[in-house]
């Protein structure tokens, strides 16, 4: 102000001072041409400015608008927690745990090469392993996220998180991960997850899934994928430049997957798996009253968690072992000759067809002549005069040769099918085998050969072409145990959705009846009890003090009888398969078991002890505190049992 004040004084008082007068100059002192030149330059600049604006706002509008939109909104997928898989008592077999995925939105990334270079340096992993997912998802739209790395560690998470603003296109997705707290327990039933394939994506089999996601590939995880997965949600958020969440625009909450309660009892399952440890085989335990599966074991098993983490080449090779086949569910897919366990069917057919009665006897001299061929009984001493009871208890082959001959192959095949052999049980799992019940027509079709009479004899004792699966045998013995009703084996107890509502509850499903009257069944059941309880019974290794166990042994020949002389010295792969089917308690059966040990040798020695352990475990569950709570609930008579010794002593066997 002072400055201007002075100026004013200058101006008003003295008027134009001497120095100011100097300003009055001729026109020429102002360079008008240069102003014009400057005007042209300025005009040109303004035109450029407007042209640039036009270019950006009109010509480049679409492109930049898209950039702005993606800048602005980010569609974040909300992954629902996968439903749990629990045993019948609510113990978790497959659960969820927090996990984080490293995702990429290609459309938001500026330079993929440098992005991958930075990521690989940051996480110290090769670029190639990051790019695999991207190559798989290359056909996907640019703004569909791709899971680059699944289930990153906390360390990796924190490394990426702090650098997120330098990694455009990268974001972290919270995706509940899968955990299997019981390890490989019931692995074949639970199944495993696996990477979604490109084909799955192309066909949209799993709505909402993106490349790199895990989906059920096997077992319950695959079969009930839809129920377990739930529904993906999404969240549209406005983000600011540093990727920070600004405001949730809209949210479509994910619907968590439903929990599946299996009918499997974890304890029985574990007992069965432990009993089969180190062996190759299968075991199925069924509640004969309903068809509920209590245990479903195939050995060896696999580690379901390994599939979540990603298999190493070594792991993958081990899973592909051609002999052990850990991924093969022997209980459902394994096809084996039933051996002497098939004699139950032959006996039923004989009784039903009235070919034999309880009193019909055949003389066993340890060999049976048909034409010029001699068929041997397993016991070289022979069984002498043998009726049905003795024939089943001691598993006399000659008796059943006679019976088979009288029945003929067609009747045998018919009754086999009626008993549920050679047909799928309808258990709700993929890859079930139907097995094989041979008929003369089948042989002509298959081998273009006529059926031989001698073949009927081998079929009658469960050898030869006949192939059954362990679950079929389990269903058969369960049907025998419950008085003849064939129930579909089921393993879903209930499905409970996220709000606690039971959306699906177990219902037993009768598939038919065994072709026998209750009297005829009672005859067989009496004999089956004898198999275990009698001194001469072949199933004595399954005896449990104080519990009436009924069963039938089976030894399925892998090679022809004539060659199988020195059992112990034979190579493992030529040894017989050992079978044992059983149920208990005999009077009021509540558990039916079928055990198969591949190349285990004799059913009585290899398979029966395994069945025993399973039944024993069941007994302990039914009667957890002996002495305090009598086995009334189980329908057992405690007076017959030495309970205390049973649990202490027998359990350790």
């Amino acid at each position: 102000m002072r400055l201007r004040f002075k100026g004013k004084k200058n101006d008003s008082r003295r008027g134009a001072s001497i120095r100011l007068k100097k300003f009055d100059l001729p026109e020429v002192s102002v360079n008008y041409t240069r102003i014009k030149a400057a005007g042209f330059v300025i005009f040109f600049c303004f035109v450029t400015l407007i042209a640039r604006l036009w270019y950006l706002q009109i010509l480049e509008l679409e492109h930049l608008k898209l950039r702005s939109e993606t800048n602005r909104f980010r569609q974040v997928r909300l992954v629902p927690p996968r439903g749990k898989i629990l045993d019948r008592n609510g113990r978790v077999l497959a659960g969820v745990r927090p996990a984080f995925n490293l995702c990429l939105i290609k459309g938001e990334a500026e330079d993929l090469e440098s992005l991958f270079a930075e990521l690989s340096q940051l996480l110290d992993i090769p670029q190639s392993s990051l790019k695999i997912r991207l190559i798989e998802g290359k056909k996907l739209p640019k703004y569909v996220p791709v899971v680059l790395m699944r289930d990153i560690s906390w360390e990796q998470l924190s490394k990426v998180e702090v650098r997120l603003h330098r990694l455009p296109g990268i974001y972290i997705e919270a995706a509940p991960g899968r955990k299997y707290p019981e390890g490989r327990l019931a692995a074949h039933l639970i199944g495993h997850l696996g990477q979604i394939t490109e084909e799955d994506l192309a066909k949209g089999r799993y709505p909402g899934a993106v490349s790199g996601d895990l989906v059920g590939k096997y077992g319950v995880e695959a079969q009930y994928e839809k129920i377990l997965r739930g529904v993906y949600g999404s969240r549209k958020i406005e983000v600011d430049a540093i990727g920070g969440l600004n405001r949730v625009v809209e949210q479509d909450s994910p619907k968590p997957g439903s929990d599946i309660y299996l009918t499997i009892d974890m304890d029985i399952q574990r007992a069965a798996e432990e009993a089969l440890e180190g062996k190759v085989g299968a075991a199925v335990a069924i509640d004969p009253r309903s068809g509920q599966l209590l245990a479903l074991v195939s050995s060896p098993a696999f580690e379901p968690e390994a599939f979540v983490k990603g298999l190493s080449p070594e792991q993958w090779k081990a899973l592909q072992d051609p002999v052990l086949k850990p991924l093969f569910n022997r209980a459902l897919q394994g096809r084996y000759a039933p051996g002497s366990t098939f004699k139950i069917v032959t006996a039923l057919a004989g009784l039903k067809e009235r070919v034999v009665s309880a009193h019909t006897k055949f003389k066993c001299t340890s060999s049976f002549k048909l034409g010029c061929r001699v068929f041997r009984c397993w016991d070289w001493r022979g069984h002498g005069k043998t009726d049905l009871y003795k024939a089943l208890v001691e598993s006399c082959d000659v008796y059943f040769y006679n019976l088979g001959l009288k029945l003929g192959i067609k009747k045998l095949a018919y009754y086999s099918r009626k008993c549920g052999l050679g047909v799928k049980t309808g258990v709700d799992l993929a890859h079930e085998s139907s097995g094989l019940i041979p008929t003369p027509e089948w042989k002509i079709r298959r081998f273009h050969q006529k059926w031989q009479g001698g073949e009927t004899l081998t079929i009658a004792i469960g050898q030869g072409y006949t192939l059954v699966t362990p679950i079929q045998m389990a269903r058969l013995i369960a049907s025998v145990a419950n008085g003849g009703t064939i129930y579909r084996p089921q393993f879903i107890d209930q499905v409970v959705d996220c709000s606690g509502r039971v959306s699906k509850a177990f219902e037993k499903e009768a598939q038919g009846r065994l072709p026998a009257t209750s009297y005829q069944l009672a005859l067989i059941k009496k004999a089956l009890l004898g198999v275990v309880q009698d001194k001469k019974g072949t199933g004595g290794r399954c005896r449990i003090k104080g519990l009436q166990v009924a069963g039938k042994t089976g030894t399925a020949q892998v090679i022809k009888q004539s060659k199988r002389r020195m059992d112990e010295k034979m190579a493992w792969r030529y040894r017989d398969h050992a079978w044992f089917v059983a149920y208990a308690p005999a009077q009021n059966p509540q558990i039916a078991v079928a055990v198969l040990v591949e190349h285990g040798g004799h059913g009585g020695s290899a398979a029966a002890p395994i069945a025993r352990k399973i039944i024993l475990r069941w007994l302990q569950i039914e009667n957890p505190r002996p002495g305090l709570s009598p086995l009334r609930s189980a329908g057992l008579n405690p007076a017959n049992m030495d309970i205390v010794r049973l649990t202490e002593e027998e359990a350790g066997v």
Partner: protein
Amino acid sequence: MFEKNFLENFDWWLLLAVLLIMAIGFINLNSASLAAQYPFQWKQLVWYGVGLIVALASLKFDYRSLCLYAWHIYGAILAMLVLVLVIGKTVGGSQRWIPLGFFNLQPSELAKIGMVVVIGSWLASDDKHEYGFLDMLRPIVLTLVPALLIYKQPDLGTAVLIVMLSCSLLFMAGIKWTSLLILIGFGIPLAPFVWNILKPYQKARIFAFLNPENDPQGSGYHLLQSKIAVGSGGLIGKGYLHGTQAHLNFLPEVHTDFAFSIWAEEWGFLGSLVLILLYALIIQRGLHIAYSSRERFGSLLAFGITAMLFLQIAINIFMVLGMLPVVGIPLPLISYGGSSVIVTMIGIGLLLNIRLRRFLFQ
């Protein structure tokens, strides 16, 4: 003295353009303030008021008296520029402000108008028809001292602007074409030296300008986001207060250097065009005033002020549109900032002043 011709000689177009730009500035700053989460628009309104008062009140005094105080002004500029390096307030790595309690004075802003006055009056007193190379040495030295002080803050943009202002005044005063060529010839070998004294972030900005997509989250980030903001506005814009780029913090410094991008985003091509045409009107009036002034100092001063306004407008908008590296040059009257508004309004006031007195010398 001039009351009888006041209405006739007053440049109403210039005032109208200024008032309209102020209106736009306030409206735009209202939106930008929401994004910046600080009510800059009200403070700016106060500065507009102060600026208008300063501009109109200064009409009372003859602009020619500034010539008498040119050396005082120059001394004051240097003093403030040294002072700011000593006691200046550092914001974002630059020491540019002298805290005065109620307001932070930015000496580099005052230096812009100050240097126009100083160089203008020097050229006016050193009255020559044509300027040779040696004649320019003094004005060049006069310019380089404050420019280097400003560069030290560091504020490369303003330092360059001051040099450019002096150059345009020299051009206007009548530099010989041969001298101009010699100057350019000297300038080119100096370029690598200048490049070497640039700070890393300044180099990065230039690299980012040359290839903004290369490092979109780093140095090129501001340019890229600004381009996205402007471009996504389209013809009519996203609507007032609906500029997502600005309101989601994708744009940096929406209230100052990048204020134009929020305007372009929200009001589109049409809105931007209106603003640019208003600026063009101011520049046109400025040139016209320089042209119609019948006296050397007035003409030089008007031209210098016009150049000051134009260079800031052009540099800022070219930067916002991604055609120049990021430099801290505000957009006159649109960018928030008391110093900038006051300096601009002093300039406008001087233009009006020169216009009013254009016939005094005939």
